[in-house]
C-alpha cells in the first residue's frame, strides 16, 4: 500500500478529533471560482537521465529554498520475499542503513552531521525500498556520494553482531508500529485473507519476525544484493541545484557502479475470491468496535484504478458520499466512513471502513452498506458526484506536491510503477473522462460477493460481531487477548 493511501484511514480516525447571532450581515458573496474539477494540473518539470549502467535519474530543479532532497528507490519489496524468508526485504533495508565502505556507521548519523534531515530515512513497502534525505543545497554533492557508496557495495559491511542488532531493531519496529496499536494487525490479517498463501502480496513488509532469525548473512546477501543494482534503481533529486552540475556528479559517483544482471520481477496473478470470508479480530485494549469490508482491488497501472478511486469518493466523500450520508447523516450509526482503492504496484485492495457511533450495531451497519452497494446498478454515479471526485482529485494532486520530498517521491513512483514520472498529472486528466458507466462497471467487477468482512471488537465482546449467526473465523493473535481457543 502506498504511504498516501495508507494514510487515508489514519487520517479518517485522526480527523475525528477535530474539532449567536452574526455581528453583521454577510457581505455580498463572491462569484464562485472556476470549479476545481476543471483545474489544470501541470506536470512537474524534470530532466530524465539514464546512465550507461541503467540507473535512471530524475532531476527537478526548484530554487525556492536552499534545500535538496535525494531519494533513491530500489525496485524490491516484500512481494519479492521468498517463502520461509518473509520480512527479508525489510531487514535488508535496515542492513543497508548501517554504513558502507566509506561511511562508517549509519548513514543517518553522517547526514545529520551535515544538516540533513528525513522523516524516516528509509522505508520498505510491498513493492519498493527507498532511502531519502533532505540536505542543505550546498551538501547535495555529499548526499549523492553517500548514496553512491551505499549502492556500490550493498550489505558489504555487515557482521553477525550487526545482523543480530538489526533483527532486534526490526522486531522492536513491529512491536512499536503494529502490535502496540489496538487492532494494529488488522491490515496483515486482511491481505492474508484476500491473497492466497502463494501470492506475492499475501504477506506485508513488516510481518512476524520468526523468519528473520533463520536468515544468515549469506542468505541475505544472496537474496537482497541482486536487487540493489543501478539497473533496478531510480534516483530522484528535487530542489535547489543546477541540473548540468548534478548530472556531472551522477557520472562521477554512480557511473562506475557496474550494472547488475537483469532483475526478474515476480509475477502477480489476478485474484478473485469465490465466496465471502467472515473474520473476527478481538483486542483487549480496544473499547470500540469497527467494521472493515475488503475486496481485491486494482493496482496502480490497472485500467480500473481511477474508476475505483471515483467509486470511493461516490461512497464516502464527507457529507455527499452515499455511505457517509446513509450512515453518518441519516441513520446516525457512524461517526466516519472511508472507502478507497489502495493501489499496490500490481494489485490493490478496495476497502470500506466504518467507525460506528457508540452503541451502534455492526450488523445494522453492514446491512446499510450492502443496501447502498446493491442500489448502485439502478442508481449509477451522477455527473455531480463525478465532478466532486474530480475536484478533490485535482486539488489533492497539486497540494500533495508541496515539499521537495513529495516531488522526488512522486517522480520516482511514476517512473517505477508506470514508466512515466509524471503519470499522476495524466491520470488526473484521464479521470475527467470517467463516465458513470465506467464507475458502475468497475463496482460490478470488483465489489462482488467474494469479499472479506472483518468485525473488530473489544476482547470478549463477540456479541458485537456483525451478523454473528453466520460462521466466522476468529483471527485474533494470542497477544491481543481474545476469546479464540
Amino acid at each position, binding site marked *: 500500500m502506498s504511504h498516501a493511501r495508507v494514510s487515508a484511514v489514519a487520517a479518517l*480516525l485522526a480527523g*475525528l*478529533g*477535530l474539532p*449567536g*447571532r*452574526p*455581528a453583521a450581515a454577510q457581505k455580498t*458573496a*463572491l462569484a*464562485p*471560482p*472556476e470549479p476545481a474539477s476543471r483545474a489544470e494540473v501541470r506536470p512537474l518539470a524534470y530532466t530524465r537521465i539514464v546512465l550507461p549502467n541503467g540507473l535512471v535519474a530524475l532531476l527537478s530543479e526548484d530554487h525556492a529554498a*536552499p534545500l535538496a532532497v535525494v531519494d533513491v528507490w530500489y525496485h524490491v519489496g516484500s512481494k519479492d520475499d521468498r517463502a520461509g524468508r518473509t520480512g527479508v526485504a525489510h531487514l535488508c533495508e535496515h542492513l543497508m542503513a548501517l554504513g558502507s*565502505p*566509506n561511511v562508517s*556507521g549509519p548513514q543517518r*548519523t553522517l547526514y*545529520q*552531521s*551535515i*544538516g540533513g534531515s528525513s522523516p524516516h530515512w528509509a522505508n520498505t513497502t510491498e513493492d519498493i525500498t527507498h532511502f531519502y534525505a*533532505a540536505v*542543505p543545497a*550546498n551538501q547535495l554533492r555529499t548526499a549523492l556520494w553517500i548514496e553512491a*557508496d551505499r549502492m*556500490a*557495495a550493498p550489505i558489504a559491511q555487515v557482521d553477525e553482531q550487526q545482523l543480530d542488532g*538489526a533483527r532486534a*531493531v526490526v522486531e522492536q519496529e513491529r*512491536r*512499536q508500529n503494529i*502490535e*502496540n496499536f*489496538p487492532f494494529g494487525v488488522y491490515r496483515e490479517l486482511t491481505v492474508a485473507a484476500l491473497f492466497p498463501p502463494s501470492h506475492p502480496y499475501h504477506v506485508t513488509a513488516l510481518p512476524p519476525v520468526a523468519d528473520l532469525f533463520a536468515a544468515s548473512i549469506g542468505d541475505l546477501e*544472496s537474496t537482497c*544484493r*541482486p536487487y540493489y543494482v543501478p539497473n533496478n534503481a531510480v534516483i530522484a533529486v528535487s530542489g535547489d541545484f543546477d541540473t548540468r552540475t548534478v548530472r556531472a556528479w551522477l557520472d*562521477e559517483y554512480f557511473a*562506475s*557502479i*557496474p550494472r*547488475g*544482471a537483469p*532483475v*526478474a520481477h*515476480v509475477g502477480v496473478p489476478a485474484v478473485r475470491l469465490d465466496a465471502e470470508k467472515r473474520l473476527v479480530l478481538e483486542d483487549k*485494549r480496544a473499547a*470500540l468496535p469497527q467494521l472493515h469490508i475488503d475486496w481485491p482491488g486494482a493496482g496502480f497501472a490497472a485500467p480500473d484504478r481511477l474508476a475505483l478511486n471515483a467509486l470511493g469518493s461516490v461512497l464516502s466523500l464527507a*457529507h*455527499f458520499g452515499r455511505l457517509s450520508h446513509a450512515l453518518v447523516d441519516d441513520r*446516525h450509526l457512524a461517526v466516519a466512513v472511508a472507502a478507497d482503492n489502495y493501489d499496490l504496484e500490481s494489485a490493490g485492495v478496495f476497502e470500506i471502513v466504518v467507525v460506528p*457511533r*457508540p452503541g451502534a450495531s455492526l450488523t445494522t451497519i453492514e446491512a446499510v452498506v450492502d443496501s447502498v452497494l446493491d442500489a448502485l446498478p439502478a442508481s449509477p454515479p451522477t455527473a455531480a458526484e463525478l465532478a466532486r471526485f474530480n475536484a478533490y482529485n485535482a486539488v489533492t494532486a*497539486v*497540494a500533495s506536491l*508541496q*515539499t*521537495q*520530498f513529495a516531488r522526488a517521491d512522486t517522480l520516482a513512483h511514476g517512473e517505477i510503477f508506470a514508466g512515466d514520472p509524471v503519470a499522476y498529472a495524466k491520470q488526473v486528466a484521464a479521470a475527467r473522462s470517467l463516465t458513470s458507466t465506467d464507475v458502475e462497471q468497475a463496482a460490478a467487477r470488483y465489489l462482488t460477493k467474494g469479499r472479506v468482512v472483518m468485525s473488530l471488537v473489544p476482547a470478549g465482546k463477540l456479541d458485537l460481531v456483525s451478523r454473528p449467526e453466520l460462521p466466522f473465523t476468529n483471527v485474533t493473535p494470542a497477544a491481543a487477548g481474545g476469546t479464540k481457543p
Partner: protein
Amino acid sequence: MSALRKRFAAGLCCVLGAWASTAAAQSARPGRPEPLPERPFKFPHIGTHTLPNGLRLLVVEDHSLPLVAVRAVLPVDSTADPSGREGLYAVTLGAMREGTATRTADQLADAFAELGRTVAPTGFTALASSFRHGLELMSDMLQHPAFDSAGIERRKALQASAAARLAQAAVTAPRQIFYAELSGPSDGYVRSLRPTAASVGAITPADVAAFYARHFGPAGTTIVVAGDVSDAAALAAVTRLFGGWHRAPPIEAERPTSPAVHETTIYLHDARSPQTYLYIGGRGPTRTEHDAVATDVLSAVAASRMQQTLRDKRSFMYSGTMGVIWQRPPRTAVLVGSTVVNATKVDSALAEWMSLIRGLSVGAPTTPAELDAARRLRVGSLPARMDGPDSLAARLVDLARDALPIDYFDRYVSSVARVSAGDLTAAASKYLDVNHLIIVVSGDRTLLEPALRAANLGPVVVVDSAGRPLAP
C-alpha cells in the same frame, strides 16, 4: 521454467556478478567531496498588517505552486476548556462547520466541493484561484456561526467517539501522567489531554455560545497566508472579509501555575500494552528566554546520543525522540524524550538513558564535533521546515502563537551559531537535571515493577492513568 525458478536463477547469477563487482567498486570509489559554500539562510519576507479592529495579518508570498495556505491563529485553545467541560473548544470549532447565519451545512459542503478542499474555521489549503472564495467561507464560519442544537449534538457525538479512541491508544496514559506530574492534574493543558464521554456529554448549546462569546474576536487573532497570492491581494481580501468583525477583546487565559519538579521519581503505570512506553523530561524555558536556543541545540545532542546508544549500539528501541515542545506563552516549554522498548529491557534502557542525560551536565559534556553537528542539524533542517505553503504557514503560526518577533527565524540562525558547549552544559544542568526528572514507565507492571525496584534508579510510585498514586 516457472516464474519462481527464473527468478531464483536470475538471483544466483546476480550474486556471482555482485561479489566480483563489489570489490572493484570499493577500490575505485571516489573520496568524500567538500561541500560548496553555504547559502546564508534567509526567511522569506513577511508582510505584516494590523486591521483597525485589531486583527493581525502575516503574509509570505511563494509562487512555486498555484496553492495558498491560510490559517487562523486564535487567542484560545483547548487549555481554556472549563473543568468538567473538557472538549468544549473542539466542539465549538466543529459546530462552526455545521452552518452559519446564511449557509446551511449542506451549502457549506457544496461550496467545499466546488473548491475541491474542505475549509475549516481555522484554515484551509486550496488552489490560488480559490483563495478569496475559501477565505470567505472561513470568515463566515468564524464570524457568523449558527450554533444550532442539532449541529452541536452531532459534533459532541464525534468528539465523544474521538475521546474514546484516544483513551484506548497506548501512548495516551503515559503522556497524560507525564504532564500531570509536570503541571498538576488541574492544569488546563493536562485536562485538555483527557476529554471524556462525560465531559463532552455535559456540554450544552449555552456553553458553546458562551465560550465563543468569551474567546473569539479579531483582537488577539492572527490570519496567516502563505503561497501564490500577493501581499496586496491578501490584505485586500482579509480587510474586506474581516474588517467588519467587531467583538470585545478576548479575555486572557489564566496564567498557568508551574509547580516545582520534585526529586526524580519513576511513575509506573500498569498498561495492557505488550510494549513499554518511556517518557523522561522536565520543564524547559519559554521560547524567548535567553537560553531557549541553547536548550534547543542541547536537545539535538541529547537525541543523537539517545539514537546512537539505545538503537545503534544496544538495539533497545526502533525509534525515539528527545526534543523541546514549545507551548503558547506564558507556558514554558517542555524538554522531553520518549520511546518504546520491550518490557524485559526497560531497566537496562532506562539506566543507559539516565546515564546519557547525566553526562550532558556532569562527566560527558558536549564535544566540539557534537556541537558542530547539532548546529548544522538545527540550521540545515530549517529550509525543510518552510518547504511549501503549508510549512510556511506553520512557521507563521509559530510566530503568531508564541508571540515571537517577525525576524525570529533569521535571528535563530545567528543565535545557533553563537551557542557554545558551555551554554549547553548550563542548559543541561538547569533543564535536564538528573536529580529532578519526571520518568513515566507504562507497561506490564508484573514484569516492570520488580526490575525497576531492583535497578534502584529512583523511587517507584505506581499510579493510575491520571497519575494518581495507587495503594501499594
